[in-house]
């Protein structure tokens, strides 16, 4: 961490960069940004925006379970819970003929309600509201380490599985005819997305985490023609909106996560306007 701090001092000789919490937050943005960009592109390709939204919202129930079991830091319970939920949702998709939207919508509503009911017992919900909005500035070096490990895991997973994810996202029966175990690949992707969303949730916030996942990818696909451009542009947009949002939130004293998402939304709007000229 010391190396990082001195590097930031070197690169950004500004007042905002002198605070340790800003240095930590900057590093978090640089870790979460690319990770969200590459997962987000795949989520958008798979039309899974609603799914990732559900995973985000269900974190409330994960927190609640953690609290019930008496854990001070509910992170691990949340992660395990999100994996279980991802497994349930992805297998429900294959087992029933009901529309995926309906299934996911029902699960989402039930999980949010359950989480609120447990957490609000005795009127103590207010102390969990930090999860709703998220607090990027409170991130600690230990938590940064967890994020780095998650980032490494995503890179590794993408290195091995990206092409399979891509084929499945283009068309399942085509992927199946090329010998890809479609169900397994889908489940793996659902679990990976769930873990990343859950790990990042306390810094980005339950309410807006999905927007941060979806917006850069949605903006990137407006102005790109192949997979490489798509990823490069999405990563650039997340990092750019992350850093700009961090600075704005520092000077305007606003919630960091929401400010970042707002900038990302601006990027989306710009690419949307630019789109007709691009094609």
């Amino acid at each position, binding site marked *: 961490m010391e190396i990082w701090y001195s590097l930031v001092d070197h690169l950004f000789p500004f007042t905002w960069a002198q605070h340790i919490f800003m240095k930590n937050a900057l590093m978090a943005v640089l870790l979460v940004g690319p990770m969200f960009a590459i997962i987000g592109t795949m989520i958008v*390709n798979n039309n899974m925006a609603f799914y990732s939204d559900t995973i985000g919202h269900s974190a409330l129930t994960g927190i609640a379970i953690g609290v019930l079991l008496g854990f001070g830091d509910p992170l691990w319970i949340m992660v395990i819970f999100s994996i279980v939920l991802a497994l349930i949702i992805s297998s429900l998709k294959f087992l029933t003929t009901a529309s995926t939207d309906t299934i996911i919508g029902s699960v989402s509503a039930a999980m949010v309600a359950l989480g609120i009911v447990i957490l609000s017992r005795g009127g103590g919900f207010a102390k969990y509201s930090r999860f709703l909005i998220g607090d990027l500035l409170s991130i600690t070096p230990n938590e940064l380490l967890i994020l780095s490990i998650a980032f490494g895991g995503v890179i590794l997973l*993408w*290195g091995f599985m*990206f*092409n399979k994810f891509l084929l499945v996202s283009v068309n399942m029966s085509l992927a199946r*005819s*090329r010998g890809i175990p479609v169900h397994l690949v889908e489940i793996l992707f659902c679990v990976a997305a769930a873990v990343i969303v859950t790990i990042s949730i306390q810094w980005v916030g339950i309410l807006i985490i999905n927007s941060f996942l979806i917006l850069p990818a949605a903006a990137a696909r407006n102005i790109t*023609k*192949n*997979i490489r451009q798509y990823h490069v542009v999405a990563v650039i947009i997340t990092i750019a909106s992350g850093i700009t949002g961090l600075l704005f939130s520092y000077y305007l004293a606003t919630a960091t996560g929401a400010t970042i998402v707002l900038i990302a939304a601006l990027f989306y709007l710009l690419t949307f306007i630019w789109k007709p000229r691009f094609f």
Partner: protein
Amino acid sequence: MPCSNAIQKQQTKACGLCCTHLEDFGVSIGRTEILRDINLHIHCGELMAVIGPNGAGKTTLLKAILGEIPHTGWLRFLDASNCQARKPIVGYVPQKIDFDAGAPVSVLDLFSAALSSWPVCLGHSRRLQERTEASLLRVRADHLLKRRLGDLSGGELQRVLLALALEPKPDLLLMDEPVSGIDVQGREMFYDMVSDLRRNYDLSIILVSHDLALVSQYAERVVLLNKTVICDGTPEDVFSNGQINLAYGPFYIENTGGKRAYAKKGGGAIA
């Protein structure tokens, strides 16, 4: 074309010796028996069309051969060179696939994803790009290399999928209504290409189609399927057989006017 020429071509290109066997092939899902007692030999260089009414199990047959759904009986491929039975390499051209037309996936991306394990998001190797170009050239679609899948026309997309199904070179090529919903020109171009491939490569083709006119024009063998093989022979044999009237009923009689429709090459497209 003189006979000897044709035979020679068959021998040099498609050997006609290797073949795919289906023996006592059947499919049941739950307690419902969808297909039973299917025995077929398909030689390489042969285009076999499978026809039959809706719900006859045509698509199920293809899925079972692909291994998507379990089957009873045996599927064997006999290699002419070493007389060894093995599982065939199967290529598959799906019906018009539905995918997200807005996704920035280029034709090259699709090929790279299917043919290599190097993550496509990091770019393509020179070698793979050349291989893709060569394989697109085979279906006269090399100009589509950098185009997005969503920007292709129906006919172009099917040609791209055909090229993809030929990589790696299959022993058996399955096509499920590959050109339904595509205009007459696109359809004829597609089938001309398929005929070329069949002549020039050692592969057998199973084609599922409702388009009896095109079937009679391009297939040398037609199988009428309804739960099992009802009728198997040349288009002339099958279309003149009384069974087809039972299977297709008034549909066939009304739309083709009996035997004449298939004799008239390329005559009236039948949906």
